[in-house]
């Protein structure tokens, strides 16, 4: 019944799909539906049907002319993606890398930072606006194969915020979430910058934190869905990198 195409979708699935596409569900319910969509074919079919039913309503909204900078920004991101696409060779799987693992940092210094520096150079070379304050760039790479997965920018827009930009799509188990952390030299423990939605840019105001320092650590760890229960990283590091000051 569930695997043979999608025939006979029950009314409550149509109803849930309709409310999801309409957008009226609260955050927690939205996330539930999004998680369920990954492998519920009936729900997928019902959602697609509602997307097409309701699509003409977008015609009720007046278009807004994008700023000329927006397309340039999109192109910069595509450039970064193109650079990261030829992934480096797969390495033996190793979980549980820790912040202070010397082997990890030796490995990254050898491999990952060459990519990081190149990527930073390309991105920064194309930034049009003059910098408002010190800018930092971090390329977060997977500990296993040094493949870049995310770029962190700090001080880029003049605001005290850190931007975590995905370079691709990452898979996260349904009962888990990626949590974003940072730790500068002299801090006793990493500070959480929040939970990450795969494929989406995360922007975190950092007014409460000291300014980003060179070599400050940033990492994404795999945590329970509602985040680390202890306030410190508890799961394996999925992506990690150090801040590099850029012009």
């Amino acid at each position: 019944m569930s695997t043979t195409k999608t025939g006979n979708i029950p009314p409550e699935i149509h109803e849930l799909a309709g409310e999801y596409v309409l957008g009226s569900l609260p955050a927690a319910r939205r996330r539930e539906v999004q998680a369920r969509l990954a492998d519920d074919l009936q729900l997928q079919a019902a959602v697609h049907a509602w997307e097409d039913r309701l699509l003409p309503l977008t015609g009720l909204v007046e278009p807004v002319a994008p700023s000329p900078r927006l397309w340039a920004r999109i192109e910069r991101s595509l450039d970064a993606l193109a650079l990261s696409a030829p992934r480096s060779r797969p390495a033996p799987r190793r979980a549980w890398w820790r912040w202070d693992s010397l082997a990890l940092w030796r490995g990254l210094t050898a491999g990952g930072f060459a990519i990081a520096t190149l990527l930073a150079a390309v991105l920064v070379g194309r930034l049009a606006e003059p910098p408002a304050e010190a800018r930092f760039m971090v390329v977060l790479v997977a500990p296993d194969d040094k493949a870049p997965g995310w770029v962190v920018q700090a001080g880029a827009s003049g605001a005290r915020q850190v931007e975590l930009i995905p370079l691709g799509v990452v898979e996260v188990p349904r009962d888990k979430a990626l949590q974003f952390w940072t730790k500068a030299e002299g801090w006793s423990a990493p500070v959480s910058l929040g939970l990450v939605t795969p494929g989406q840019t995360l922007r975190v105001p950092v007014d409460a934190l000291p300014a980003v320092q060179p070599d400050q650590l940033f990492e994404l760890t795999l945590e329970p869905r509602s985040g680390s229960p202890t306030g410190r990283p508890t799961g394996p590091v999925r992506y990690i990198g150090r801040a590099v000051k850029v012009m």
Partner: protein
Amino acid sequence: MSALSEFDYEAALAACAAGERAALQRLYAHEGGRLLGVVQRIVRDAALAEDIVHDACVNIWTRAARFDPARGSARGWIYSVARNLALNAVRDLAREVEVDDDTAAALDARASLEAWHDTADAFVWQDSLGRIGPCLEQLEPVRRNCILHAYVDGLSHNEIARRLEAPLGTVKAWIKRSLAALRECMG
């Protein structure tokens, strides 16, 4: 609808999947303004809206290969990418509001400044709505407004209830029944 239907969205997505950046640029040139309009209406912040359209374009580029024309229209898929990012952003913001009364009060004040007209004329009707137009017209105005406030303005159940000064349970029931009626009417 003629100007919209002449653009081949499906071909544009196929070209994006094949790595042709010019295809994404054509799609952006054709649809960027409307995408930004739709997103900005939901998030009510010009800078955030541009951030989201940026993210949406990057998503469209990286996920184009996964679009399956058998499951829905290419244009519907493109808008679902952008609307989902926008809705996730406003819902996550709302979750913070729940624990921050000052912000909630500020948002309420801002909302009340926005001069909403929740009468039968909350939205300007256009002929270009296609099949959903007559079906929406069969709904009572207040229920129609629930649907439009949710889809077009990105309001949650709670926000619609506050806006219409109706009990939350009533609004939820209106939306459920309106969706069922629309599905029956449109097939």
